[in-house]
C-alpha cells in the first residue's frame, strides 16, 4: 500500500470518534426537524421516521415568529459590525503605521478588553442600559457588541494591515498622491479582503451572542435568534422539538457554511498577530 494512503487511513481512524461526536448533533438536528410531530416521543427512541415533513419549516416560521427574530439578529449583527469596523479601521491603521505616545499602553488595553467577557459585567451593563433607557432596545446590543468586538477587530485588522508594505503608500506620495489619495487608491483596495474577513467574523460573533441578548431584551418581539430558540425550550411544559430543531437548522447552517469557508483566514490572522 502507498505510504500516504496508509497514513491517511490511520489518521482518519484516529479522528473518527471525534468526527462522529461533532457530526452527531447535526444529524439530531436534521432528523428531528423533518420528523412528523407525533413521532417525536416514541418508545423505544429511534432514529427512523415514517416521512419527511418539510412543512415543519414553514409551520415553525409562522408559529415561532422566526422571521422577526431573524430580522432582529441581522439588524444587531450588521449594525454592530458596521460600528465596530468604522471605529476599528482608523485605529488599526494608526497601530500599524504610526509611532505615537502611549502605543504600548493602548495595545495592552486592547489585549485586556479582548479578554473581558460580557458575563462578568452583565449586571453593570444592564444597569447602564437602564440608566440610558435602552433596555428592550436592540441598539443596546449594537453598542455593547461593537464595544466588546472592537478589540478583536482592531487586532485582526492591524495584523493584516501590517502585511501591506508601507513603501507602497510612500511610492504613491512620491508619485504625487496626497495622504488621502494614497489611502483611497492604494491602501484601501489592498485592505478590502482583510476588512471583509474581519467583518464576517464580527458578524458571526453578534449572530451567536446569547447572554447580553437574553438580558437586555425582555419582549419577545425583539428577541434575537439564539434567545428566540432558547425561549422555545426554557421553562415550557410542552416543547415543540421539531420546530426548535428546524429553527436551529435555519439559524446555524448558513453561518456554519460561511465560517467553514473562511476559517483559514482566521487561522492566518491569529498566526499573524493575535496569538504569536
Amino acid at each position, binding site marked *: 500500500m502507498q505510504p500516504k494512503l496508509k497514513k491517511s487511513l490511520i489518521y482518519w481512524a484516529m479522528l473518527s470518534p471525534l468526527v462522529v461526536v461533532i457530526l452527531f448533533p447535526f444529524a439530531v438536528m436534521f432528523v428531528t426537524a423533518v420528523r412528523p410531530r407525533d413521532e417525536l416521543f416514541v418508545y423505544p427512541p429511534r432514529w427512523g421516521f415514517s416521512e419527511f415533513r418539510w412543512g415543519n419549516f414553514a409551520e415553525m416560521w409562522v408559529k415561532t415568529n422566526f422571521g422577526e427574530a431573524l430580522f432582529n439578529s441581522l439588524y444587531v449583527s450588521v449594525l454592530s459590525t458596521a460600528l465596530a469596523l468604522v471605529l476599528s479601521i482608523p485605529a488599526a491603521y494608526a497601530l500599524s503605521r504610526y509611532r505615537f505616545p502611549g502605543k504600548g499602553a493602548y495595545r495592552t488595553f486592547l489585549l485586556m478588553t479582548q479578554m473581558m467577557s460580557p458575563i462578568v459585567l452583565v449586571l453593570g451593563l444592564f444597569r447602564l442600559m437602564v440608566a440610558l433607557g435602552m433596555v428592550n432596545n436592540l441598539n443596546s446590543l449594537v453598542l455593547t457588541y461593537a464595544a466588546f468586538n472592537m478589540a478583536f477587530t482592531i487586532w485582526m485588522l492591524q495584523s493584516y494591515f501590517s502585511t501591506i*508594505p508601507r*513603501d*507602497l503608500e*510612500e*511610492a*504613491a*506620495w*512620491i*508619485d*504625487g*498622491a*496626497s495622504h488621502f*489619495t494614497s489611502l483611497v487608491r*492604494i491602501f484601501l*483596495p*489592498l485592505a478590502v479582503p482583510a476588512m471583509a474577513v474581519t467583518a464576517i467574523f464580527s458578524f458571526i460573533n453578534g449572530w451567536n451572542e446569547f447572554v447580553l441578548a437574553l438580558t437586555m431584551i425582555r419582549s419577545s418581539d425583539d428577541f434575537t435568534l439564539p434567545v428566540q430558540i432558547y425561549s422555545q425550550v426554557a421553562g415550557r411544559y410542552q416543547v415543540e422539538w421539531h420546530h426548535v430543531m428546524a429553527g436551529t437548522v435555519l439559524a446555524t447552517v448558513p453561518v456554519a457554511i460561511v465560517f467553514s469557508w473562511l476559517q483559514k483566514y482566521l487561522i492566518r490572522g491569529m498566526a499573524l498577530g493575535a496569538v504569536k
Partner: protein
Amino acid sequence: MASVKIRNVEKSFGALKVIHGVNIDVEDHEFVVLVGPSGCGKSTLLRMIAGLETISGGEIVIGDKVVNNVPPRDRDIAMVFQNYALYPHMSIFDNMGFSLKLRKRPKPEIEAKVMEAADILNLQPYLDRSPAQLSGGQRQRVAMGRALVRDAQVFLFDEPLSNLDAKLRVVMRTEIKALHQRLKTTSVYVTHDQIEAMTMADRIVVMNAGRVEQIGAPLELYDSPANLFVAGFLGSPSMNFIKGRFRREGDQAHLLCDDGTALPVPAASTAWNDKTVVLGVRPEHLNLAADGQGIAATVDVVEPTGANIEVFVELAGERVCAVFSERHPFRPGEKIALGWDIDKVHLFDAATGRRI
C-alpha cells in the same frame, strides 16, 4: 533637473540621534552614491531627501528651494524602492502611468510616456500583466520605469539591486549607469555594496554611524582614503592593516611590529616617531620580493578565483591577504618573501584613524 544641497542635516528618533550634521552637495546631472554599512544612516538620509522622514535639524535644498516642509508629492523627485513597491492591484502600465494620472495629464500623453519608458527598459510585452506575474529583474525594471516617465528633477535609489541575484545585479548596474549617461538626471543612489558604489558613482559619499567619512570620486577615495574606515570599506578583498611603532631615520622610515619585524613605510614627519600607527596595504600592491630581500611570510591558505589567486599569509604576526594575477604554485606552509612599493601604501594614526 536640479542640484541637491544637504546642509547640516540631523535626524533624531526620540533621544536617539542617527544623523549628525551631514553636508553633501550633489551637482546638477551628477550621480552620487551614498555607501556605508547597514545602520549608518544612508537610507534615512535618502528618505529625508524624498520627504518620507522629517528633518530634525539643518536643511535640504532641491534646485533653489528649501524643501524641509514640502510634502513628497511636491518635491518633483522619483524614487526606486528596495522592494520595488509596485502597486499589486494595478497592471504594469497603470503602475508606470500612476504619477501622470494623478497629475491629471491627458491620456495620449500618459500613453506616449509609458510606451517610451517601456521601450527603453524592454517592458512592452508586459504592460498588461500584474506585478505578481513578473520576475524579480522585470519588477526592478518597472520600478525604474515608474521613475522614468516622471521627468523628475532628481532620481532617488534605495538599494534597488539588493534583491536581485549576483548576475542580474551586474547587468542592472550597467543598465542604470547607461541610463544615467543618456538622461543625465541628478541621482542619489544608496547602497551597502562598495562595488556598486565604485562602478556607478560620479562621486561617492562614504557614511558611517550617521556621519560622512569622506566624499570624492571613486578612484580618489580608493587611492587616498581619508581614514581607516574608508580604507577598509572600499576594495575587495579589503586593505590589510598592520599596527606598529613608527620610526624615521634620515630619509628612511619603518614600522616596528610587536614581533620585532621592521616594515618599510613612507617617510612621514619625525613628529610621529615612536607613535603607534597603522600601515595599510591593498592586497594587489603586495608583490613577491627577489631572493634574499623582502619580508618573510608563511603561506596559510590559497584561494584561486580564476582571474587571480588570493593568498593568505602570516606576515609580522598578522594575517595578510595578497592578490596575484600570476598563478604562483604556493602550498600551505611554504615560506615566501613579500614586498611593496612604498608610494602605494598608506599610514594612519592609530589613535584617530586619520590618514597621515
